[in-house]
């Protein structure tokens, strides 16, 4: 059993879940440690308790969010004594702010009900009586009013009944079902067939079922709208859930109609459920919808709900799902491995729109950095490689031809492009510069280098940042290469699949650390000079070195006799890298909590840099 545990993918696949819930699973594994070295080689003992760079959060499926909504709905039902359809409409109208709803509703129930599209405006009856009756039509809202007679002039089909047509072609707007014996023409499609089925909300604006269907589908599919208002002009009634459900989902035993509709209906209904959940999540600051495509999970993270909390924590969360699209969970382990990145968990930042883990740096700084990179990096690179600055007026000059005798367009300063010194000192050496070390030239280059220092500084950080980003992108290749190596090892040595897992672990660790390193450069760029920054960069350097060492080992060729030593080395390095990464993350997170970090620019939510020494 011990070795089974060794490659149980629970080890890291559910890493985050373990961390946020409890350590039960870890303890179990820890007790196994003596027998089962393979699996626990990589365990760092800090696991099980929450680390300072992690936040408490909970991953919720669409189902669980629906349960949360249901709880609120039931709460409101209990207080107001209304049906759940009504409570849902009221809550959605009030953006799920229960306190506000209760206050307003207690103040003037009729007003709120009308505004929420629950009741018809005219002569609002006392709320309690009204709301109790409200669901009656909703649940039986499919009113199969078969019209016994038809008359209106438009229809080309001959009428079954001999009733004379009324002079006005438009029947009154408020065709209630009580007038069923009168001719009915749907005011939207002008269908008047006698066996047409019609529907209406409580406002009694009756239209045929087909038009309702088209309308509801167009609202849900084309407009992603969860609040479906009555089709009548300026009618504010909103269709309750049961109305829409009865429309979209075929009744059991109902006559089999349009095949297309039968398939589309349930799809639209489930899309509507998702829209409800998205609306609920959007209204709640402590919830966030997973940004990965076609993922419907939600993460609840109350600690990161307020803006101010984002200056002390980096709320990296994971929704619990993996991969893209459905059915990824069903994939075999080796498939997931081959997919590498695609099979990755849905990690994202709860506090900002960055769809990855930007630890250790806080949201505002990460955002500033990304913006700067978007604006600057390529331009800056071009400027650096293609231009020089006039040593007198610092204008940026591109030399696109001609000799080295430059005359600045702006200040008319004449200088040598090669040495940057004044041209007057060049005498007659027109086309070759042999004065590289002359004092004036050195001075001019000094001045230039000073003005370029900030650009250089930025590029220093940017290039390292981009390098790690690039490496992370290449990690897909590395995964594939490593897998090959692992197979090779199994052939050339007597090691089993389980025993070569150390390679995979190492690759994963490198990948993770590169993410951390990447963002440490964004952080370092903005950190104000001082001891704190020095310490930060020391930690960064140690991690950088450890990661490079391990990467090199992973790239090294495999020889059968070396495998045991390689394994030993890789395992040791992996643990070391993991620890270095922990240190960087822990220390930085602690620094944010202590308010230790100072910036060289002003950052939202932090003190201005001027106030520091």
């Amino acid at each position: 059993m011990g070795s089974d545990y060794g490659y149980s993918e629970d080890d890291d696949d559910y890493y985050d879940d373990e961390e946020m819930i409890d350590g039960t699973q870890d303890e179990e594994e820890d007790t196994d440690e003596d027998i089962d070295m393979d699996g626990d080689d990589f365990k760092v003992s800090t696991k099980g308790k929450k680390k300072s760079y992690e936040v408490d959060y909970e991953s919720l499926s669409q189902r669980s969010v629906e349960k949360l909504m249901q709880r609120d709905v039931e709460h409101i039902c209990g207080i107001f004594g209304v049906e759940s359809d009504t409570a849902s409409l009221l809550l959605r109208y009030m953006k799920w702010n229960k306190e506000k709803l209760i206050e307003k509703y207690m103040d003037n129930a009729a007003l709120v009900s009308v505004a929420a599209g629950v009741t018809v405006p005219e002569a609002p009856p006392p709320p309690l009586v009204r709301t109790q009756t409200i669901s009656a039509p909703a649940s039986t809202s499919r009113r199969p009013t078969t019209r016994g007679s038809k008359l209106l002039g438009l229809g080309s089909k001959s009428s079954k009944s001999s009733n004379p047509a009324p002079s006005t072609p438009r029947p009154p707007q408020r065709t209630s079902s009580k007038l069923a014996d009168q001719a009915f023409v749907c005011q939207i499609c002008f269908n008047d067939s006698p066996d047409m089925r019609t529907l209406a909300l409580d406002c009694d604006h009756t239209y045929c079922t087909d038009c309702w269907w088209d309308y509801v589908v167009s609202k849900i599919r084309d407009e992603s709208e969860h609040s479906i208002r009555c089709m009548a002009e300026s009618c504010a009634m909103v269709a309750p859930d049961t109305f829409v459900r009865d429309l979209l989902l075929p009744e059991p035993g109902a006559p089999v109609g349009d095949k297309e509709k039968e398939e589309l209906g349930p799809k639209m209904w489930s899309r509507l459920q998702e829209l409800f959940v998205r609306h609920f999540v959007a209204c709640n600051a402590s919830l966030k919808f997973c940004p990965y495509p076609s993922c419907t999970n939600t993460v609840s993270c109350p600690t990161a709900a307020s803006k101010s909390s984002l200056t002390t924590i980096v709320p990296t969360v994971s929704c619990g799902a993996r991969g893209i699209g459905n059915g990824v969970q069903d994939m075999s382990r080796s498939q997931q491995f081959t997919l590498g990145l695609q099979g990755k968990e849905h990690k994202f930042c709860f506090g900002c729109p960055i769809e990855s883990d930007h630890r250790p740096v806080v949201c505002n700084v990460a955002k500033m950095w990304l913006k700067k990179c978007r604006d600057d990096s390529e331009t800056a690179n071009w400027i650096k490689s293609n231009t020089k600055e006039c040593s007198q007026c610092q204008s940026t000059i591109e030399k696109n031809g001609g000799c080295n005798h430059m005359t600045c367009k702006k200040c008319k300063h004449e200088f040598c492009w090669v040495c940057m010194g004044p041209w007057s000192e060049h005498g007659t050496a027109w086309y070759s510069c042999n004065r590289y070390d002359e004092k004036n030239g050195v001075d001019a280059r000094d001045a230039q280098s000073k003005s370029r220092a900030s650009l250089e500084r930025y590029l220093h950080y940017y290039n390292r940042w981009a390098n790690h980003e690039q490496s992370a992108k290449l990690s897909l290749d590395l995964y594939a290469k490593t897998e090959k190596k692992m197979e090779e090892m199994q052939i050339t040595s007597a090691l089993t699949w389980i025993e070569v897992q150390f390679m995979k672990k190492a690759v994963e660790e490198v990948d993770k650390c590169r993410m951390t390193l990447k963002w440490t450069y964004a952080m370092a760029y903005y950190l104000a000079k001082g001891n704190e920054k020095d310490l930060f960069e020391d930690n960064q350097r140690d991690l950088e070195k450890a990661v490079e060492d391990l990467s090199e080992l992973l790239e090294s060729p495999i020889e059968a006799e070396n495998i045991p030593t390689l394994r030993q080395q890789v395992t040791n390095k992996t643990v070391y890298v993991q620890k270095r990464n922990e240190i960087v993350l822990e220390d930085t997170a602690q620094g944010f909590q202590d308010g230790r970090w100072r910036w060289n620019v002003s950052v939202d939510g932090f003190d201005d840099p001027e106030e520091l020494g």
Partner: protein
Amino acid sequence: MASISARRLAKELREIQSEGCPVGITLLEANDFSRWLFTIEVMGESLYQGEVYDLQFRFDAQYPISSPAVQFVVTGGKQSPIHPHVYSNGHICASILGNEWSPVLSVIAVCVTLQSMLASCKVRPTDNDRYVRNAPENPKKTLFHYDDDT
């Protein structure tokens, strides 16, 4: 069975032909169920007295569930009325053509609404030039923000 949009437009057209248009509105052209043209004139004492504008309707297959694309004609020497909700390219910013469209509204209802809308002040929208420069061909593709100034 003909599509709902064709059937509905046929019915609207028949009504227009049998009952006529309201005062100041005339049907200019309705050769098919994809594009209709009206002329529209503001009646009574108004800034637009004596001015006649061409109004174009374009319908898609989802009409009347989806709103028609309505704009003033600005080609062939025609001009759009000077109005704070009408751009010089003929596009109209009116909520009933956007989020307040209701499938029970008809072509004539839209004409009447626009006619009464015109009976107010006579200036271009403040952002006219910027909008017209970048506006899509179909006004329905623009997401207007509707100011309530009724």
